[in-house]
């Protein structure tokens, strides 16, 4: 018997009102694999991650984690499902009523009931890993720059060493050097801690560095997927246009001609 993939999406659909955002997404992610999702703005990448997390409920299709359905869970099953994940939200979503270190160690403190001192030690360690010093730990999220908030959010996502980590645009808004530090950190999470990762990014340098596999989403479907090195070899015109960032090609931006 083969082990089921860590994450399996089969024909997932999701609409908001008349607007069809996910139009039959099918994707497998193996255990310990790092998959990068690329695709234009507003094509439903964040919606896809939120559907897997159970924050949004898909209209149709199946989502399985470790071979078990995870759509519409509640109670204990939902708790067990939530425990597996760490998520970096695109907007950070830091708790603005708590200082940075309590944000980072939130899961350790509130869910795992770890003693404050140990939790703080781990928080400081994770903050150091994203290049933030100990004096940032006492500040509140509103006192940080956008890039610093993003890094705190990243530290929070990985603090409890989850089995599955989602990064929604981890390097957006960071300088190129810090972006590379973050890339290394993501790679480390996957390689050393054995986590399964899905990362959304528009940053192709980052995608090339952290991905085992890359998948491209367009009009609510995965239109291409393959190992990282194949992305430069493929003759798929959509992928080609996207990774080279050309305005003309099969992907039409909805821009009104002046």
């Amino acid at each position, binding site marked *: 018997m083969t082990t089921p993939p860590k994450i399996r999406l089969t024909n997932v659909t999701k609409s908001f009102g008349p607007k069809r955002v996910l139009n039959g997404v099918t994707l497998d992610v193996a255990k310990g694999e790092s998959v990068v999702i690329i695709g234009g703005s507003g094509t439903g990448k964040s919606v896809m991650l*939120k559907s897997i997390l*159970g924050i949004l409920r898909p209209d149709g299709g199946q989502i399985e984690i470790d071979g078990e359905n995870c759509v519409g869970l509640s109670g204990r099953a939902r708790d067990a499902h*939530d425990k597996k994940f760490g*998520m970096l*939200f695109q907007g950070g*979503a830091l708790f603005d*009523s708590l200082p940075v270190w309590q944000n980072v160690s*939130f899961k350790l403190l*509130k*869910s795992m009931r770890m003693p404050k001192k140990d939790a703080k030690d781990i928080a400081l360690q994770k903050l150091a890993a994203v290049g933030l010093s100990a004096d940032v730990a006492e500040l509140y999220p509103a006192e940080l720059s956008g890039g610093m908030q993003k890094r705190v959010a990243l530290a929070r996502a990985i603090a409890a060493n989850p089995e599955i980590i989602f990064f929604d645009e981890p390097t957006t808004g960071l300088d190129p050097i810090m972006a590379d530090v973050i890339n290394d950190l993501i790679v480390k999470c996957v390689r050393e801690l054995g986590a399964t990762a899905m990362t959304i990014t528009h940053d192709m340098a980052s995608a090339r560095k952290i991905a085992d596999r890359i998948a491209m989403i367009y009009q609510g479907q995965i239109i291409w997927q393959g190992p990282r090195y194949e992305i430069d070899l493929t003759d798929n015109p959509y992928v080609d246009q996207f990774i080279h960032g050309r305005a003309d090609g099969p992907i039409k931006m909805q821009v009104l001609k002046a």
Partner: protein
Amino acid sequence: MPQVFVILGSMVKLTNPLALIGRTFLHFLAMAGQFAIFMGKAVGHVFRPPFYFGQIGQQCLTIGYYSLPVIAMTALFAGMVLALQSYTGFSRFNAESAIANVVALSITRELGPVLAGLMVAGRIGASIAAELGTMRVTEQIDALTTLSTNPMKYLVVPRLLAGTLTMPLLVLVADVIGIMGGYVVSTVSFGFNAANYLHQTWDFLEPIDIISGLVKAAVFGFIVTLMGCYCGYHSKGGAAGVGNATTSAVVLSSIVILIANYILTGMFFSK
């Protein structure tokens, strides 16, 4: 000319009073259902672990303790104006001696709990709705679930408990201060005998007067916090959405308080 009719026609469609009433009614039913489900869930979570005692304590402080000054001021002036009104009114038929009873009864049964409830609706209901609403639109509530923390238990239950438990205490304080306000006005301005006044108040009050007020207070505390949580939790669409949530929380909880007050009074005192 034909366009005018088309425009008029669509205006009639848009403003058709029956359609408007129907739509509003359906909207109301949908919301009432959603609200009932929310209430059921919230109350269910009150009794199931994990319990966030730190949060509960903190909410008791914000909801209960920090509301004390507002409630005290409200009660003080309510008691004072009651004495003033009763004196000027009752003197027409030489019934000034009933002032102590009127003040005590009105404050403990009605004005204490209702005024406290309305003040808390403005102070606490609004702030809960704004806080949870902001957390909703900035995805902090979603972030809670990804950190294995149930937002119902972490955010809603502590506020509900704090509201329901601290409101009776607040109203107890309001009762004392309100009666004191009436006492001060009666003795200082109208020259009542202080000992007589207190005696009259004390002899006349029945336990049920105070207890009914405290039960009302608990219910109002529950209503205000639940409504604040509900409106904030379901807000959407950025700053404007949070603004709407805040307004709805205050307006709805005030109305529901007044309705509940009538029902509770009926239950306690109609024979």
